């Protein structure tokens, strides 16, 4: 027979790419959704804890010394001091609770004199106490508290400055861009990628195997002289191609939006720290992982009578893959011994972790790739046997 494998792959791809809705939901949408969702979550998280820059803080201040109010004026914020005439302290606190004011600052009378007279070495009474009442459930009030606390810290330091820590303009954090990117990417991406790849493959494999069984179209293929093995391989390869595209779409969406999600400055995290070799290895790991995933999902789907049944039969595998994926977030980096890289799915997760944090060794990646290909071969053989089994195909 001429190249039946190619014929099957071509047909499967024609089926998929001919259906614009399927292309959109399987390939374009995941990447787009992830990008939008992560970007939105990132900016949402940041703004959740940051007040607007030109916000005017409404403050009740009791006994505020002029030296402190001068410092507040000198710092770069807008403050409105609320009128305290005839307002009891209880009412002022209530106003903070009700978010009608951001803060109540209570200084002791003669604060400046007390502070000057106070010597921590010889004092027998507690140091003068400033009370800052704020509302932690209110973003602006929290921001106000942080600003005032640091203003007062500065005030204290200006009176008895013995030494400073990191007060210059220098860059003190000496972590390289590689390190910080590697740390975050190696923690997040292997897990996310596995989940994306799984959901991408899950969207297509049951339809292509159990769906054909359900609709009776697989029997039409099985009465042709084509070898069952070719049909199995053709299905796995074409599903792999589609799964890979779906995975890459999610991957690109993640890479582009992850810096936004983490709220890190763009120069601390940069996908360009990885070399072309790193990306090629990553792509190879992803490719072989997709093949194993598709193979496993195809075998499970072949057992099912309907697409719906396949969906529920896949669930246990999904849980296993998710749990394995989380291992990238636990422990201290990828294991070094190569035999870990023979365990399906775990090898992919740890291989990707190694690539992202620059700690991979060639032999481990090779072990991962080769074992994945062997698993694909085994799964493909099993699938071919199942195609040949009348009990499974026409029950």
């Amino acid at each position, binding site marked *: *027979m*001429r190249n*039946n494998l190619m*014929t099957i792959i071509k*047909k499967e791809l*024609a*089926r998929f790419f*001919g*259906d614009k809705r399927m292309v959109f939901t399987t390939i374009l949408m995941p990447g787009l959704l992830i990008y939008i969702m992560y970007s939105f979550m990132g900016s949402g998280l940041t703004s959740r804890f940051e007040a607007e820059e030109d916000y005017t803080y409404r403050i009740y201040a009791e006994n505020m010394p002029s030296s402190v109010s001068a410092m507040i004026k000198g710092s770069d914020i807008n403050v409105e001091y609320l009128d305290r005439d005839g307002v009891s302290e209880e009412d002022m606190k209530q106003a903070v609770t009700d978010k009608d004011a951001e803060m109540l600052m209570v200084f002791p009378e003669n604060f400046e004199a007390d502070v000057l007279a106070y010597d921590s070495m010889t004092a027998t009474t507690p140091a003068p106490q400033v009370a800052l009442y704020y509302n932690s459930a209110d973003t602006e009030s929290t921001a106000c508290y942080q600003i005032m606390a640091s203003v007062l810290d500065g005030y204290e330091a200006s009176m008895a400055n013995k030494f400073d820590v990191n007060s210059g303009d220098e860059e003190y954090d000496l972590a390289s861009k590689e390190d910080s990117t590697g740390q975050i990417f190696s923690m997040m991406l292997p897990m996310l990628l596995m989940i994306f790849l799984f959901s991408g493959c899950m969207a297509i494999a049951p339809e292509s195997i159990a769906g*054909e069984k359900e*609709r*009776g*179209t697989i*029997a*039409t*293929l*099985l*009465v*042709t*002289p*084509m*070898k069952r093995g070719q049909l199995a391989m053709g299905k796995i390869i074409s599903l792999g191609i589609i799964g890979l595209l779906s995975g890459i779409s999610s991957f690109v969406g993640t890479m582009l939006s992850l810096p936004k999600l983490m709220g890190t400055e763009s120069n601390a995290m940069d996908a360009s720290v990885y070399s072309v070799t790193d990306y090629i290895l990553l792509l190879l790991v992803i490719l072989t992982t997709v093949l194993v995933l598709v193979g496993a999902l195809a075998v499970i789907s072949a057992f099912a009578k309907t697409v719906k049944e396949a969906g529920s039969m896949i669930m246990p595998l999904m849980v296993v893959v998710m749990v394995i994926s989380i291992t990238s977030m636990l422990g201290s980096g990828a294991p070094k011994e190569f035999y870990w890289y023979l365990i399906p799915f775990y090898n992919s997760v740890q291989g990707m972790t190694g690539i992202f944090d620059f700690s991979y060794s060639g032999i481990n990646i090779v072990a991962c790739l080769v074992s994945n290909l062997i698993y694909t071969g085994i799964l493909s053989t099993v699938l071919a046997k199942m195609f040949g089994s*009348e009990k499974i195909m*026409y029950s």
Partner: protein
Amino acid sequence: MEEIMKVKGLNKTFTLSQKQQKIEKTNEKKRIAVHDLSFTSYRGEVFGLLGPNGAGKTTTLRMLATLIKPDSGDAVLDGSSIVNAPEEVRGKIGFLTSELKLEGFFTPNYLYNFFSDLYGVEPAVRDERKKRLFDRFGITQFAEVKVKDMSTGMKQKVSLVISLVHDPEIIIFDEPTNGLDVLTAKVVTDFLLELKKEGKSIIVSTHIFSLIEKICDRVGIIIKGEMIICDTLEAVKNGKSLEDRFFEIYEETVGEAE
């Protein structure tokens, strides 16, 4: 006469699931679908398998088409054994049954080319054959319409045409006119006679007497998985109408028709 299909002692037993046992109110775990079935058909003949529903006709044809394997026995089709060389058999036969569906997403044109590729038909031969068959069945104007958007009759015609992409010597046809309107049914029976004229060997299963009388040279009556009688149509009829003969035979074997 050259033997083209020799079926010898085919047996097939199905295991009943508990659910099926409940539905059929039986405690049997096994159901004998086909028992020690043998027959021979000759090149250029139309052979008819006649029998009531559940007699084992479809199971027999599925075994001959290598979709399922016999428990024991064998059949040799044009020199290839269904047990030892199922792939060879698949290349030699055209099998058509309502269970074999076409993917609704594709057009007849695409599917014809796809299956031609799987059967290894050369493109030039394929295009000539496609044009002839599409014209013959009035598919040409629907060649680019998705199968799912077609009428049942048109779908059936497309299935028929596609089962013949490789111009097989042996055509196995399960219930060829089931579910078809009278016009389409006539198109199909006329076509079977044409194929016979071309020298093809055809085996059909049916429970329709008139169809057998119209197209078959040789007929085998199957009841409860066993071949009761197998001979030329005239010999089976024995001077009566096929319908009368069938009920006679049925009564002799099973007793009064239930």
